[in-house]
């Protein structure tokens, strides 16, 4: 083989690692395998082996013999079979000979004889172009529209359930409702109180500081009392409820869906609306105003606390201010919003829960959607009712 040596002086070579050595000589490539040919070890050298292998094959302009010897192999697993298969396929139109492979290898490759790695598998990652983004945007718009359009249907179903309850009150699940009231109210009291207290204090500071320039900080009480009562408390409470209860209702019903519990209920003949939704709605109708009232008084407390500490306005002055500034109608405007919010929050949360499919990501998605819709609903309902009352001049001026 003088010819080779003259023209391709680099052909003679040796590439080596822990698991293989590749010796190129004349028209043969001798590959010796040794050690533990298992996934953990192969995974580490797979790329290097193919690089070396390609290099060795690439140097030859004519037909070669490749001999793979497994004499030094200690143990093998299926990944070894895959590697050898790949090496065979890679060396197209060359003779690849296997020598001294362990018995285990042979039985494994028999089992995998029909496995075809050259099968064209679809590419997984998709490239997103501007058109895809436009499509996604359009789909999102459609989704929002549908979300809006399904509200009347939800309300209709709910009305049916109410009518049913009125006709057959004994079928109402009272225990369940009590459980939910407790669960929605008691653990929430602390957070509603804390948030309302702090926001009350901060608002008071902002307003009192500006009024104090004119020496008019006493007027802050009536003003803050009114804002706290009519707007901030209900908004804050509503948002906290959307965060706490909407998410938990959606997650609860969603995991029941994943577990086929909802399907089980249906075949047993239980009306999901009556069984799951009604008790939660009723519970929320009671829990929401309770929390709102707590929020209102926490707001007062925050305000009174700040005025006492920063502006030296005593509690009796504060209480007088509240009596003068806040009427029972103001509390009424706040509380009259709660049933609307309560019903909508729970219906939307239940509805999102019912849309959960049997995978974990969908549970997360619908829980998020439930909370986002809940927050949005709280603000929308608050705005609509506030505008309505100012327009018709119904409850207080």
């Amino acid at each position, binding site marked *: 083989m003088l010819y080779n040596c003259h023209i391709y002086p680099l052909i003679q070579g040796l590439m080596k690692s822990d698991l293989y050595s590749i010796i190129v000589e004349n028209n043969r490539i001798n590959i010796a395998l040794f050690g533990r040919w298992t996934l*953990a070890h192969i995974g580490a050298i*797979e790329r290097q082996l193919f690089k070396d292998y390609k290099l060795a094959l690439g140097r030859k302009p004519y037909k070669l013999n490749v001999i793979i010897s497994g004499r030094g192999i200690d143990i093998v697993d*299926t990944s070894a*079979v*895959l590697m050898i298969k790949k090496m065979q396929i890679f060396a197209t139109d060359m003779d690849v000979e296997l020598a001294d492979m362990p018995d285990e290898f042979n039985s494994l490759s028999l089992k995998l004889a029909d496995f075809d790695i050259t099968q064209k*598998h*679809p590419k997984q990652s998709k490239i997103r172009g501007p058109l895809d983004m436009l499509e996604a945007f359009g789909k999102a718009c459609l989704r929002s529209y549908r979300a809006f359009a399904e509200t009347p249907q939800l309300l209709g179903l709910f009305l049916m359930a109410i009518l049913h309850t009125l006709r057959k009150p004994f079928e109402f699940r009272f225990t369940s409702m009590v459980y939910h009231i407790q669960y929605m109210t008691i653990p929430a009291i602390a957070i509603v109180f804390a948030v309302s207290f702090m926001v009350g204090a901060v608002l008071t500071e902002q307003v009192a500081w500006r009024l104090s320039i004119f020496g008019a900080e006493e007027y802050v009480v009536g003003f803050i009392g009114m804002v706290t009562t009519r707007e901030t408390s209900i908004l804050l409470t509503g948002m906290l409820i959307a965060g706490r209860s909407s998410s938990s209702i959606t997650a609860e019903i969603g995991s029941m869906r994943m577990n086929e519990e909802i399907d089980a209920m249906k075949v047993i003949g239980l009306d999901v609306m009556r069984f799951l939704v009604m008790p939660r709605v009723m519970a929320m109708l009671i829990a929401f105003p309770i929390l709102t009232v707590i929020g209102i008084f926490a707001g007062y407390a925050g305000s009174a606390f700040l005025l006492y500490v920063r502006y030296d306005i005593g509690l009796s002055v504060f209480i007088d201010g509240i009596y003068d500034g806040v009427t029972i109608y103001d509390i009424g405007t706040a509380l009259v919003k709660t049933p609307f919010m309560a019903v909508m929050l729970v219906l939307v949360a239940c509805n999102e829960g019912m849309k959960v499919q049997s995978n974990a990501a969908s549970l997360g998605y619908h829980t998020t959607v439930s909370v986002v819709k809940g927050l949005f609903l709280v603000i929308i309902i608050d705005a609509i009712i506030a505008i309505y009352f100012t327009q018709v001049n119904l409850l207080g001026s």
Partner: protein
Amino acid sequence: MTDIPANQAIIVVENLRSQFGTNLVHDDLNLTIEKGVITGIVGGSGTGKSVLLRTMTGLKKPEAGSVKILGVNPFSETKGGLGLARKWGVLFQDGALFSSLSVLDNIRLPMKEQLGIHGQFAQELAYMKLFLVGLDWTVGQLMPSELSGGMRKRVALARALALDPEILFLDEPTSGLDPIGAEKFDELLLELTHALGISVVMITHDLDSIFKICGNVAVLADGKVIVDGKLDKILKFDHPWVQEYFGGARGRQVQAQQQNK
């Protein structure tokens, strides 16, 4: 595939006590499992078969006694027995596939996370496992919720085989499959364990599986392994549950079928 020779103990459970509150599930349980064999664990409902499996796979800490898998205690290891996670595969009763990952990604996950194998090689390996469990490559793109019961079990098996484990734990692999599906699954297990040289620990209620593929059987009753060994020994064992289970109409029928073959 281990350095442990065939028919040596790969799992040794000694004086195991498992307890939930006052409910004593295992009391002084001893069990040794041999390498290279399919060992069936049988016992009445609620005798603690699943608890035993969870204890062996390090998911539950025993109240007393010791468990050794390939000489290692699955609990004492700091990283939750990560060393063992490369050496065993576990097939849960309902598959426990990751619902937000495609079939292919389910199989690739252990390779990527345990061994850092990714890219094309991982994909080819995953398709190879799908082939091994007898599924078409098109299944790879599906999500777990799109699979039938039998397919779920096969995919779960493929995932359990992802790292070419030395030990395979199976909790009622054929429950919920139709008899033909169950028979095919049994055949698949038998073939794979022969070809791959895996040791299998299998909880089962399926008399067909026991007679057809289990080399060894361990019977759980009264919180203990009351008898274990080859099937002939079990069949002769004098215990009311064993006699009722294997000697009942269904048991006799299966035995007769097996003898006819």
